[in-house]
């Protein structure tokens, strides 16, 4: 694999993200904080979807878990160390995902999607209806927390978000991405991809189908909860909308927009949608329509998402003779559930 150009691009992207608080008004850094939350959550989500072939339509439940976890730990219990909140959110993700995953990984395809959607809706109605515990539709407050034990008392909320917390989240995302990169390129990741492609064959090669799917489910839940804790801190609120099925759909949207068949696709999708949604909301109140139209266009014309488009453009520019030819299938391994137009049951 040709790594060099992409390494340069990634370093450049990280440097650019690092410069946002310095060069741009605080508004933009503040805007990007949720992006980091989503990026972390989607890295986990795509382990399940892109690498494991399981499309969860209830994944927002874990983001909600992280946000509500932050509200409980920092707000109710008064432990205002963000690191402890992160650990607590991760633990909550683990504890919830283990039994839940044990139940749901026995199903694949549309049944897996429906079951996760059902659990998501169940969580939503619990959060929504038990207002004496969860604040109902007004949600729970997530107070301001200390980062690495530092109060940052001189900063107001916006300055905290656009400064220290911004860098904190950037660092978290880099760590999360590094760990996920190791996971998908490990022997475990290989087995996960093999059972996505052909579970029967994988079984006979000794791949522990249910255990591996469960592991992927749990890891994705932990990532989701950590992302949710960031979202909760940023908005200062954990509310049931976080868990609603349309929010789960939003997560899938970001992943597909960026391209689930590439490692960085979900991060690209999270960034693109965060910026896009902000722009659209300032232009028109009908931004959902535009987003829906974009999603439809991506699904129809760009099944490999923005990352796939970038890869095609990149290989077109770097090919010695720049001539339009038939779209070439990439020769080396792709983590995607689907190549272009490939059905999952397209197993010879």
């Amino acid at each position, binding site marked *: 694999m040709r790594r060099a150009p992409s390494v340069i691009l990634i370093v450049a992207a990280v440097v650019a993200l690092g410069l946002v608080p310095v060069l741009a008004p605080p508004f933009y850094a503040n805007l990007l904080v949720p992006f980091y939350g989503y990026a972390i959550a989607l890295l986990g989500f795509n382990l399940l979807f892109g690498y494991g072939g399981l499309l969860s339509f209830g994944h927002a439940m874990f983001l909600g878990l992280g946000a509500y976890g932050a509200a409980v730990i920092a707000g109710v219990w008064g432990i205002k160390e963000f690191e402890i909140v992160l650990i607590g959110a991760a633990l909550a993700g683990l504890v919830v995902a283990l039994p839940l995953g044990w139940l749901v990984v026995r199903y694949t395809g549309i049944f897996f999607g429906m079951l996760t959607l059902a659990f998501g809706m169940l969580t939503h109605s619990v959060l929504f209806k038990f207002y004496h515990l969860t604040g109902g539709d007004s949600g729970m407050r997530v107070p301001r927390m200390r980062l690495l034990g530092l109060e940052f008392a001189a900063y107001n909320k916006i300055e905290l978000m656009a400064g220290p917390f911004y860098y904190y989240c950037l660092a978290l995302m880099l760590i999360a991405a590094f760990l996920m990169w190791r996971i998908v390129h490990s*022997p*475990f990741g290989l087995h996960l991809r*093999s059972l996505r*492609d052909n579970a029967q064959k994988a079984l006979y090669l000794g791949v522990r189908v249910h255990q591996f799917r469960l592991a992927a489910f749990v890891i994705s839940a932990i990532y989701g909860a950590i992302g949710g804790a960031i979202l909760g801190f940023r908005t200062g609120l954990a509310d049931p909308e976080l868990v609603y099925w349309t929010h789960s759909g939003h997560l899938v949207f970001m992943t597909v927009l960026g391209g689930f068949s590439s490692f960085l696709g979900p991060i690209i999708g999270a960034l693109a949608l965060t910026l896009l949604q902000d722009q659209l909301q300032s232009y028109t109140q009908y931004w959902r329509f535009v987003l829906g139209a974009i999603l439809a266009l991506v699904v129809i014309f760009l099944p490999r998402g923005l990352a796939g488009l970038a890869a095609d453009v990149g290989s077109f520019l770097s090919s010695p003779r720049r001539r339009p030819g038939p779209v070439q299938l990439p020769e080396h391994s792709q983590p995607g559930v689907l190549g272009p137009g490939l059905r999952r049951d397209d197993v010879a």
Partner: protein
Amino acid sequence: MTPLIETRGVSKHYGAFRALDDISIAVRAGEFVSIVGPNGAGKTTLVNLLTGLLVPTNGEVYFKGENIAGVGPVALATRGMARTFQLVQIFPQLTVAETIGAAVVTHQGKQWRLLSPLLADEAISARVAEIAGIFGLEQRLATLSRLLSQGEKKLLDVASAFALQPQVILLDEPTSGVSTAEKHTVMKTLVGAARAAGVDAIILVEHDMDLVASYSHRIIALSEGKVLADLPPDAFFADPAIIETVVGKRRGH
């Protein structure tokens, strides 16, 4: 010597339908045993019982002295049994190296290494290269499986099964979809690879009587869920009644 694989009085019933009835067979180390029979004789059911996928209605299945009824493919893969399928089974989006690598990971017990880079593991890549070499796939290591030719897909399917370093391998019609001219070549590659990989016993499910006659030490014929014959090739092909049942009237044997 205890047989590697043994079934004792195994039956499999689906309601009133008796797919298999009171089957007792044994395969010993060093043997090449073929299972033949007309369609619907119960060959596939027997294979699924031998590979621990199905639980017998009655009787027991032993592998290396242990009852393996229904333990499932994963447990058997780690204990030393591998199988291939009649319809070629590949991972469309994994490369050749990754496909073989998946089996090597199982064999080396590294599947729970969540954070160690696969590419940096030399024990795995050495074994992958070795297996690929045996099957002549060493030039295709970085190719996506779905881009291989049909013949290469078949080889890869079998190669990944061999990568488990099994003691017994069950080949379910390995030459189906291969032209008559190439059948012997493919079989030679498989048998040679089995020797090179140190496989103790081969069980072949096959329709092609030429192949069965050329390679088997023993032939087990199934008919309507029962063992019709369990004989060495000479005795087997000397009995026209058996041949008639197994091959039908299609060919003028």
